[in-house]
């Protein structure tokens, strides 16, 4: 069976939701989980640790360039790089210009995931204050994958989710539905 993955893109207001997701996410999922969260440029420690602390029994790591993509693991896009996929089993980092003022950019990762994983990519868009992620979500749809946006009414900041829904007409989940999905996640 072709490999797949789940992606989450988020920005302002998404941290709490991501922590809630990580709390319920199983420790042995048969696919990787990749988080692309907007973050401060020169802050290299703390974010990963905070997320790991929210996910007892699990570890969140920031991949280095060409690190393997492994099932059951949770990855966070490192600060000041874009996170892409060299192939289905290998990460690739780059320092291209910020996209939608963001590096890491959700668009970048989602586009790359769409190209490499096609229909086996499932992507979530959470709370955020800019449009990063909407174009990437559209690419996921073009590639045959699935996109789910958090209900804008429940987002702390609705811009990112709203723009994604506008561009893709994707499914909309409440936070409760998102948590339920991640407690028994499937591609």
């Amino acid at each position, binding site marked *: 069976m072709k490999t797949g993955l789940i992606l989450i893109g988020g920005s302002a207001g998404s941290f709490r939701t991501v922590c809630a997701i990580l709390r319920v996410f199983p420790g042995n999922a048969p696919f990787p989980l990749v988080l692309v969260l907007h973050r401060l440029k*020169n802050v*290299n420690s703390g974010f990963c640790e905070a997320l790991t602390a929210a996910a007892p029994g699990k570890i969140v790591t*920031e*991949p*280095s*360039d*060409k*690190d393997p993509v492994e099932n059951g693991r949770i990855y966070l896009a*490192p600060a*000041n*790089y874009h996170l*892409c*996929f*060299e*192939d289905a089993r290998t990460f*690739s*980092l*780059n*320092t*291209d*210009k910020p996209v939608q003022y963001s590096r890491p950019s959700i668009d*970048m990762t989602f*586009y*790359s995931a*769409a*190209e*490499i994983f096609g229909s086996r990519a499932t992507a979530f868009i959470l709370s955020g204050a800019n449009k990063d992620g909407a174009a990437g979500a*559209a*690419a996921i*749809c*073009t*590639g045959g994958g699935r996109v789910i946006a958090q209900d804008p009414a429940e987002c702390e900041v609705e811009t990112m989710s709203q723009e994604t829904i506008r*561009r*893709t007409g994707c499914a909309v989940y409440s936070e409760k539905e998102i948590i339920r999905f991640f407690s028994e996640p499937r591609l």
Partner: protein
Amino acid sequence: METENIFISEKELDRIIAFVRERFAVDFSGYARSSLSRRVARFKKNIRIESADELCMLLESSSEKLRLFIHEITVNTTEMFRDPEFWRYLRQEVLPKLAEFNAIRIWHAGCSTGEEVYSMLILLYETGLIDRAKIIATDINSDVLHKTREGIFRFKDFEAYSRAYEEAGGQHDFSYYFDMNDESFAAKEFLKAPLNLKLHNLTHSTPFSKFDLIMCRNVMIYFNTALQTEVIRLFAGSLFKNGILCIGKKENIAFLESASSFRDLNPAERVYSLREKP
């Protein structure tokens, strides 16, 4: 929603790489697929062409489009004092080691538009080493080498660079080093004294000189593992005894076979030194 071909297939990419290599003797086969794919797609979209065949025909027929294409594939974005804590470490731990020598030879491999080079020049000035230093800055692309020579940067980047400089332990007002204009800021001539530029391709290259310090930060991320291995081997052959190599914060050479020539100096900052030969 667009349904045009936004992805480049493996076959298309192979075709383009082979074409460019055969027709123009430029070999991109060692470049990371994800970056190549993204940049080719971007180029195609910007000039509004659909297929790999159309692209090849265009590159064949227009030397200007060829130049733009190669620029798109080979030019990387860079910034001054990227990862300030790395530059602090360089100032506090690495340069004092090099200060023991009468002459300090530094190679910026893949210097792009020069932001990192000028960061180094500023650091050398502030540590009193600029008169003893010689910097060779190389890149495959002559446009960016020219920009490095000019040392002119966009005004909108000034504030961010100034902050990074301060966080990196900068001792002056950042503007001390530049002539300020409306749209840009230009490096003062005194900074450029140690600077030499050279067109150079890291692919299939053999050592052309020896250095005390090689800076190659966030260049090899654009290469595949095979080319990374080759480049690390090149660097090992281009350093004096105990010479130092600095790579990017999230780069990783640990699993490359040629990395056995190096030992960790500060792995967290991705700084290595050349092992003694047995």
